[in-house]
């Protein structure tokens, strides 16, 4: 299992743009929004939690179809499915690799972008915490969507259509944590709910995704 993770990370680094792409997209989004909305600090501060979370979500979405598509095209997925690794573990490892390449850099870079958007200082910590807790769910749900659409030639757009509604609860609780942090309220409740979604996704979705892969490989 470790070998699969290392291979995927190595591929992401060598293919170029693995680590940088999602992050660059996130940055561009956080630059474009003030250009569209206007530079007023107060207005930006009030929408910053939402923008940062929607940005993270879209940055995550951007690289989802690569989770399984490359392995599908070159036949590795056939071979992995007949290897002694359970397919559920393959899914979980690939989602983890996706999170390390996409989610983790967002978590680390988020405070800088928070400053750009005038996010109040008290909310910065909660932004990092909420992204750290929530982005694994985004990767896992995304891996499920990628497993569903892996056999489709032009699955990219459909993948967004399928995955984005599934992101709704994660987005609501994630942004709520930051908003409460900014308003000086206690964010424990949404934080626990978000953690619940992440843990539930990580525990159950590998089975659904592996089932979808098996159906697609048939």
């Amino acid at each position, binding site marked *: 299992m470790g070998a699969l993770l290392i291979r995927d990370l190595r591929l992401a680094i060598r293919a170029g743009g693995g680590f940088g792409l999602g992050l660059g997209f996130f940055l561009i989004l956080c630059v474009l929004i003030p250009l569209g909305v206007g530079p007023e600090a107060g207005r930006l501060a009030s929408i910053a939690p939402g923008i940062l979370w929607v940005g993270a979500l879209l940055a995550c979405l951007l690289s989802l179809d690569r989770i399984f598509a490359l392995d599908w095209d070159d036949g590795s997925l056939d071979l992995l499915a007949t290897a002694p690794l359970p397919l559920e573990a393959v899914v979980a490892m690939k989602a983890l690799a996706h999170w390390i390449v996409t989610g983790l850099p967002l978590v680390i870079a988020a405070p800088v972008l928070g400053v750009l958007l005038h996010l109040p200082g008290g909310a910065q910590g909660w932004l990092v915490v909420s992204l750290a807790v929530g982005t694994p769910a985004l990767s896992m749900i995304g891996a499920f969507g990628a497993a*569903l659409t892996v056999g489709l030639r032009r699955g990219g757009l459909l993948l967004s259509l399928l995955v984005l509604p599934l992101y709704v*609860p994660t987005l609501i609780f994630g942004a709520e944590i930051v908003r409460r942090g900014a308003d000086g309220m206690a964010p424990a409740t949404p934080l626990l709910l978000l953690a619940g979604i992440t843990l539930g996704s990580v525990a159950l979705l590998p089975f*659904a995704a592996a089932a979808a892969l098996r159906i697609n490989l048939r």
Partner: protein
Amino acid sequence: MSLWEYANPRKFMETSARVLPWLWGMTVSCLLVGLVWGFFFTPDDYKQGSTVKIIYIHVPAAMMAINAWVMMLVASLIWIVRRHHVSALAAKAAAPVGMTFTLIALATGALWGQPMWGTWWEWDPRLTSFLILFLFYLGYIAFWEALDNPDTAADLTGVLCLVGSVFALLSRYAVNFWNQGLHQGASLSLDKQENVSDVYWFPLLVCIAGFVLLFVALVLARTRTEIRLRRIKALESRERLAE
């Protein structure tokens, strides 16, 4: 004889062909009675005026929007467990019907909301949930359309429906958490105290029965079409194989 025999496509086609004309008749009469009674023979509400009468469309449509998804979930489960093709095709057939009901509920809600709340759209938890439900329907239908192999499509959309149901439910609670809304409480409940008054209640019941019948009739008719399409597809691929 077991209920599952109706899952045999031929048996299903025979039975549904016999049942459908009656079903259409009942649907039309229920809807006619319910809507005419509701629109013309009930008093105006003292607060909401005659706009209240839109509940005869709004409430049944909203109920069926959710029930249609539940029916799709049950049908998908039956397909996944028992591999009855008719069940998978019924789930496929129900999706556009459910989506249309969702759209009707949203549109009538907007029409009602304008005079009552002074706005066409409000990010109220109920309205938002319905919008999200609409997105789920959209994804589900698009996914069916995108897949070529009918069995693969049935399996994958079944998995999507299962997982989607969990997330739809989660979204419902998340949205409640996100915003407390303007929407009034349930119009119907088993607790008589909370119900709308009897004058509106009886025609509403007839309308709900009409919408349920309409849903069943539409789904049966669409399932028949899907079965025929599936049959054509099977014949075509067999022909290609024989060449």
